[in-house]
């Protein structure tokens, strides 16, 4: 049973633990709130996220019904009764994306290593602006955006214009900026001139700012040009963001539907140039008479309105017996509300090689006219030129004749005039997978030969052991030979002794037998027994005679007396070495 003293001590310990912390970490909290729950499509909403805790990070990318127009944050630390609390306030200015019941979902918040979420918020967005109490909205303020296209059912490749009009009755309106339409599915060129004029709308005098884009559809089918957004400021004393007294609002145009039709099938004889619009083609030669060897410039000009930038080089091989040098095409195009207009010029230098009539065939151009809804073909007139006699040039030099040499042209550095990418690789071999080998497969393929080599070593070791006494005698022969080599210079007598031992061991090894000494006859008999046997291909028919003869020579040198001749010993050693290696492969 604890004593009173023990109970007091426990109570004091608990009290001190509870009271000792002057800074307690609070559980992280996050709260989201908006400044209004109903607004007009052109109005904005202020979202405030208050987070207790340091280093708060709010993910607003989950908000789909609104666009985040601006953001700011502020932090503060409060200390109450010795406990400090860190608070972060993040504010976001939101613009609604549509009318209806819109939701700001639960926002993920990261703070102090924790992940928490706010509560979702539902807001009603209506067409018309909601009047704020105490606000100073101008009931007569008019700002509206109108958008239109010149043709809602264009053909593929046809140019059309998109016109955006910003209409207002307040010349002093402050504009934050214009978010232009995205023009997905179109190539778009914005025209430089902004048209400004006065007009009347619903009985009011208004100012109109008109912006124009030139569009060209990139594919067939139904397309939607998303609305443009214009941001502007109105007085709004209820807002505290940036300590401003204005509220940001948006005006937007309506989305536009465009149906792009494919071009009708072309069944003409001439090839279709790909042009869509209205065009003309001319061909002119700078002179009507010329001499052989002289050059004249042929100028082919395609002009008109439409997608001229897409026009390729015309097919032109030139007249017979005439050299043709093509120059780089030159184009002059300008974009306007009427479309892309201008011309593209192709120049060719022609050098007739012979006297006579030179005929340049007609150039043909086929394009699709969207106004007529059909393909149109135009041809130039053929050009006929009389070529008089001049400095005739052969196309190729005749044998035995020197070719005419022209003066070396001044060379200039080739510079890129335009840049573009090279075309697709459209062969089906593009579907052939050629990725690198998997790492584990690579390691396996590298290690398998190593394992097989190990197997070869093991097999070689086992094979060696099967030889039995013969293997041992072969080892002794190799050993003795090694010793003979080592003593060849220093002790020729010893060398000869080792050679003799090596030879005897080699004979035993060849016979698969074991022993220490052999007579000449025994050696001959052993070798005779092995010669011709399967697996003994190194033992010849002469060995039963030659080897004992070598043994005799060795004994003669050893026991012959006198100083050994090193050269003679070396010669014998070489013979013994070859014989031993042959008897013991």
């Amino acid at each position, binding site marked *: 049973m604890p004593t009173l003293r023990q109970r007091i001590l426990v109570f004091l310990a608990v009290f001190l633990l509870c009271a000792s912390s002057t800074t307690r970490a609070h559980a992280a909290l996050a709260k989201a709130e908006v400044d209004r729950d109903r607004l007009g499509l052109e109005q904005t909403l202020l979202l405030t996220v208050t987070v207790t805790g340091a*280093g708060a*990070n709010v*993910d607003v990318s989950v908000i789909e019904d609104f666009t985040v127009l601006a*953001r700011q*944050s502020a932090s503060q630390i409060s200390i109450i009764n010795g406990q400090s609390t860190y608070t972060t306030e*993040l504010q976001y200015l939101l613009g609604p994306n549509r009318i209806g019941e819109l939701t700001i979902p639960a926002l993920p918040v*990261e703070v102090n290593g924790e992940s928490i979420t706010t509560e979702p918020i539902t807001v009603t967005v209506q067409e018309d602006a909601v009047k704020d109490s105490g606000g100073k909205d101008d009931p007569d303020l008019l700002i509206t955006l109108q958008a239109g296209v010149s043709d809602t059912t264009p053909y*593929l490749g046809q140019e059309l214009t998109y016109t955006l009009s910003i209409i207002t009755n307040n010349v002093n309106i402050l504009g934050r900026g214009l978010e232009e339409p995205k023009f*997905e*599915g179109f190539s778009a060129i914005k025209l430089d001139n902004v048209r400004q004029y006065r007009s009347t709308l619903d009985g009011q005098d208004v100012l109109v700012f008109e912006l124009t884009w030139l569009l060209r559809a*990139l*594919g*067939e089918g139904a397309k939607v040009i998303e609305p443009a957004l214009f941001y502007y400021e109105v007085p709004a004393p209820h807002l505290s963001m940036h300590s401003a007294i204005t509220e940001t609002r948006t005006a937007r145009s309506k989305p536009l539907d465009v149906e792009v039709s494919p071009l009708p099938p072309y069944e003409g004889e001439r090839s279709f140039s790909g042009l869509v619009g209205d065009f003309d083609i001319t061909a002119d030669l700078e002179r009507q008479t010329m001499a052989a060897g002289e050059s004249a410039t042929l100028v082919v000009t395609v002009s008109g309105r439409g997608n001229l930038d897409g026009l390729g080089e015309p097919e032109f091989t030139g007249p017979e017996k005439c050299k043709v040098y093509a120059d780089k095409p030159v184009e002059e195009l300008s974009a306007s509300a009427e479309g892309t207009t201008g011309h593209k010029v192709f120049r060719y230098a022609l050098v007739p090689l012979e006297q006579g009539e030179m005929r340049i065939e007609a150039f043909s151009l086929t394009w699709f006219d969207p106004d007529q809804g059909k393909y149109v073909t135009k041809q130039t007139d053929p050009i006929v030129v009389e070529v008089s006699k001049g400095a005739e040039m052969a196309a190729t030099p005749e044998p035995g004749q020197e070719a005419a040499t022209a003066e070396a042209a001044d060379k200039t550095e080739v510079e890129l005039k335009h*840049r*573009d*990418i*090279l*075309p*697709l*690789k*459209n*062969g*089906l*071999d*593009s*579907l*052939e*997978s*050629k*990725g*690198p*080998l998997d*790492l584990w*497969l*690579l390691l396996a*393929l*590298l290690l*398998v*030969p*190593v394992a*097989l*080599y190990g*197997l*070869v*070593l*093991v*097999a*070689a070791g*086992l*094979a060696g052991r*099967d030889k039995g006494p013969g293997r041992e005698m072969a080892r002794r022969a190799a050993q003795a030979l090694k010793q003979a080599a080592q003593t060849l210079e220093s002790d020729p007598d010893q060398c000869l002794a080792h050679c003799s031992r090596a030879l005897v061991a080699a004979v035993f090894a060849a016979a698969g037998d074991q022993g220490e000494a052999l007579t000449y006859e025994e050696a001959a008999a052993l070798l005779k027994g092995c010669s011709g046997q399967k697996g003994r291909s190194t033992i010849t028919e002469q060995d039963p005679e030659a080897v004992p003869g070598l043994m005799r020579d060795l004994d003669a040198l050893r026991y012959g007396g006198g100083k050994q001749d090193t050269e003679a010993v070396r010669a014998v050693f070489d013979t013994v070495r070859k014989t031993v290696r042959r008897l013991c*492969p």
Partner: protein
Amino acid sequence: MTHLLKTSTLLLILFCLSAAPARPGFAQDSDQAQAFLEGVQAYEQGDFARAAEAFLGLAQAGVESGRLYYNLGNAYLRAEDLGRAVLWYERAALLMPADPELRFNLDYARSQTRDALAARGDAQDREAAGGSLLSRVLFFWKPMLPLRTLQILLIACGGVFWLALGSGRVLKNKPGRRLWKSLAGLALAGVLLIAPTVVHLEYHRVARTKAVILAPELAVRSGRSPDATELFTLHAGAEVDLEEEHEGYVRLRFGPDMIGWARADQVERI
């Protein structure tokens, strides 16, 4: 030679002859061929987004082809998505580094990017451009041969080396043994030459430290928060090194010393 020795040597020879991986076949899937041709047609008609979608479907289905990735780069570039264009060109370069059309288009795409390293000095510029002198010498064929070819060469040299070593071991006659040992020496030299490059490329393939910026404009900050100090801005197509990834943010490095954090969904690894 014993039967076992003969058998093991024969196995080693057979392995080395058959170790080269089977040549991958052409597309056996007619659906893939159809999808590919639709992508080509869409591109030629000017619908580059649709072309990119068709090619991307094939890549996601597992077709690992430098030519397909090149086409993806072209489609994205025409669709004015510079970031993805550079990304797919770089992926194609891993598979066919010496393709001249790819190099031309990649150079063009790079010329369209907005970000450039500040010129600092010869050594640092060289390092930023193509690695140190040592790495350019050791890995000199990195821009010439794809990783797959180097892997196959390495396997072949390794196989020849071990085969030559094994044959030299078991052959009894000296000239044959000498020949195999010489062959082993040559094969070993090949292994020592190729292996460092393969290891280097494998490391980068597995680690995937290179990445491309996809967003038109990306703020790189001092911390993992949209409110952290903005250190510098990168644009679509800029190529960066990724050092760390944490909670939806990546720490990236542009050049030798421009480091910061950015949103991971705006960057994609090569």
